[in-house]
């Protein structure tokens, strides 16, 4: 019995395995849906909402929504593109993001998605929150100014490293990532080789002393926009 499911994204027919999410099926077919909290090796989080699509007219996060036979998925419509821009802009104004002197610039997924969506400056008001930096750990530092609360570090630590170094505390606009200690990252069992230490899509959790090892101009998204790797798999070209 074939478990193949057929549905469309922006009228392109996609073939998927039963049990796949819309994002997984789209990736496999070479259709890129912008995302920030989603990462292949981790349980879908559904928090950034950047991957929002419409499924038969209803908004859903494509990273958590399973494929359904015959579903009509809209992704690159003007309406959805506007939502995505607004969401990414929210993430920029919520924290303090200074791309021009951030070590992550060029490798940063937030920056890359913003460029891909055509964002030049946020339309929202900057919130300029006061946030902490924790440089206590010998190999890794946290700059919460740049955190977008995607939860990748939380999930990577728990699911892949089998530790519990990171977790969310607080709620609403005061929500932040805390570490499993009274105060400092150096008091946790985080090791430099942990997946959690390299799972951050932005410059919030960074490795020390390698920030500029790869010069600007030769970085991941300097040559090609984010999502190009996925689009290289496009099956219906």
């Amino acid at each position, binding site marked *: 019995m074939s478990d193949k499911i057929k549905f469309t994204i922006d009228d392109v027919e996609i073939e998927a395995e039963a049990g796949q999410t819309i994002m997984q099926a789209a990736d496999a077919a070479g259709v890129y849906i912008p995302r920030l909290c989603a990462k292949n090796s981790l349980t*879908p*989080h*559904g*928090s*950034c*909402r*950047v991957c*929002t699509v419409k499924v038969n007219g209803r*908004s859903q*996060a494509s990273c*958590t929504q*399973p494929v359904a036979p015959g579903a009509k998925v809209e992704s690159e419509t003007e309406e959805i593109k*506007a*939502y995505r821009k*607004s*969401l990414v802009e*929210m*993430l920029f*104004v*919520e924290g303090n993001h200074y791309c021009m002197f951030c070590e992550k610039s060029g490798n940063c997924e937030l920056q890359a998605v913003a460029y891909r969506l055509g964002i030049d400056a946020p*339309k*929202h*008001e900057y*919130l300029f929150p006061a946030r902490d930096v924790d440089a206590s750990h010998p190999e890794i530092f946290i700059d919460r100014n740049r955190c*977008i*609360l995607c939860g990748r570090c939380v999930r990577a630590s728990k699911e892949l490293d089998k530790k*519990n*170094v*990171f*977790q*969310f*505390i*607080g*709620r*609403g*606009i*005061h*929500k932040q990532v*805390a*570490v*499993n*200690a*009274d105060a400092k990252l150096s008091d946790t069992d985080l090791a430099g080789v942990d997946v959690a230490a390299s799972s951050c899509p932005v410059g919030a959790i960074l490795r020390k002393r390698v920030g500029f090892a790869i010069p600007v101009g030769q970085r991941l998204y300097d040559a090609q926009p984010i999502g190009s790797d996925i689009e290289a798999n496009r099956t219906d070209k």
Partner: protein
Amino acid sequence: MNENLEAVIREICQKYANDSARMMDIVRDVQSSMGGVSKAAMKAIADAVGVAQVEVESVVTFYAFLSPESKGKVVIRLCNDFIDRMFGADRVAETFEKEFGIKFGETTADGLVTLEYTPCIGMCDQPPAALINDKVVTWLSTDMASRIAKAIKADGNIDKLNLPNGDGNNSHELVNSMVHNNLREKSDLIFADFEPGAGLKNAIAETPVEVIKNVKASRLRGRGGAGFPTGMKWEFTRGAEGDEKYVLCNADEGEPGTFKDRVILTEAPDLMFEGMTVAGYAIGAKTGVVYLRGEYQYLTAFLNDVLQKRRDAGLLGKNILGKSGFDFDIRIQMGAGAYICGEETALISSCEGLRGDPKNRPPFPAQKGYLGKPTSVNNVETFCAVAKIMEKGAPWFAQKGSQGSAGLKLFSVSGDCKKPGVYELPFGTTVKELLVKVGAEDAIAVQVGGACGITVAPSSFDEKICYDHLATGGSVMVFGPGRDLLELAHSFMEFFEEESCGYCTPCRVGNTLLKRRLEYVMAGKGSPEDLVYMETLGNTIRNTSRCGLGQTSANPVLTTLQNFRSLYEGKVKPSKDGQLASFDLNQAVGLSESIVGRKSIHHHD
């Protein structure tokens, strides 16, 4: 000291079998015995139940009634929702501040008293109201506030406040509360005479499948507001695979302006427990959990007593009513101050001892809910209706109400009306009919459905209250001449900003942005573009948020923009110089001016 802390915490954790799923009970107990849950306490709890310290911190920092820092021996939480402020909460706040010599948010130096604000505590029919530890005080005047403050200062004992008791079971020795029912209109459903067991007897005479068929035939839909057909929810839960199943009762009545569940819990708890037991039979569950909002702690001893009486009468426990193999029991799970926990998957998270974050769907609770097992979550009032449907039959219920909204509904009416309180009325009642009943014919606006509902203008008062027109879980707030509806919208936005769990971007960030832009407009610093911005932002929040909170949190702005647009238009003016009026250039250059010590060339005097 530290040894003592560890011993106390060990004992508390043992009381809950060192089960991390009982984290809510554990941290609540620690909070009440130690005044807070310190980092040392978090560590001790984590060690006892076998989770990471930061997991405990994650829970403690989520709920408003829990705190890492130590609170006063007496915590006064004054409700500062819009209705309470209409009736003098601000003056009461001033009195408390003067009496204790501290501001709200502070604790007295001797550690006796903490003053805090809290959103709706389910007492909008008797405002202003406050919680003093677990005790509810209502209809507060400045005199009364002053008297209470003096009594607390005298001996720190809140049991000696000498407050009068309210009506009905509020005077029951296990309740002892000054809360009033304000039950204004009863019909033959929830508050009619009921013999415990009457519905259950009929239910167990049928097969579980027949019970579900009956609930479907009654056309009962969820009373919490979303209106999902109850019978269908039960059918999914019954049909889902799982070695265990659960029945959860949503008694986290937190929608501003709603208090009908409070009156049910006080006057008709048997009916609710009976409905839960019927659900247990129908879906094949052995355990029911009532998730009771922290604000209603004062009812727990009474409710536990009712549960015990039902066990003694064979209505709970093993082989219920002699039916072999029908085992079901109920426990009460306390919340700790989080509106989001009224969302069914957040409620499940909280019951599991986690932050009250909603879960991703699918899977739906019917497939994978509490502890990963098939679960049906229903509202207090829904369970009551079920018990009554079992007693009187599905057709009796189905012929009441309107086409798509069968049955009667409890409405909690508050605000500018002569008779605030609870009304049991058929679905399909118009706003106008309701206003006549409550004595508020001069209303300038009616908020139907709570903070997440609709601000209805007089031109729509002929509309029907039911699932297909004006939907509500019961909240109806009335506003008379002179009330500022932009202030109303703002107070709701403050509420959502405070109550967002923060999980998803649009709700966490969007609500703050929306509230801020509204503030600019209210301050006369808005331009017409700001109204367009608010609509666009509101729609983004509505269409991209992960759960019902975010999907409705922009409604205060969106529905007032739609129904009372002239109020906004009167506040905004087109910009003259091409800059948004909300942009304050002097403020923008202020910090750099202070650093360099001279005025910027851009500074306008």
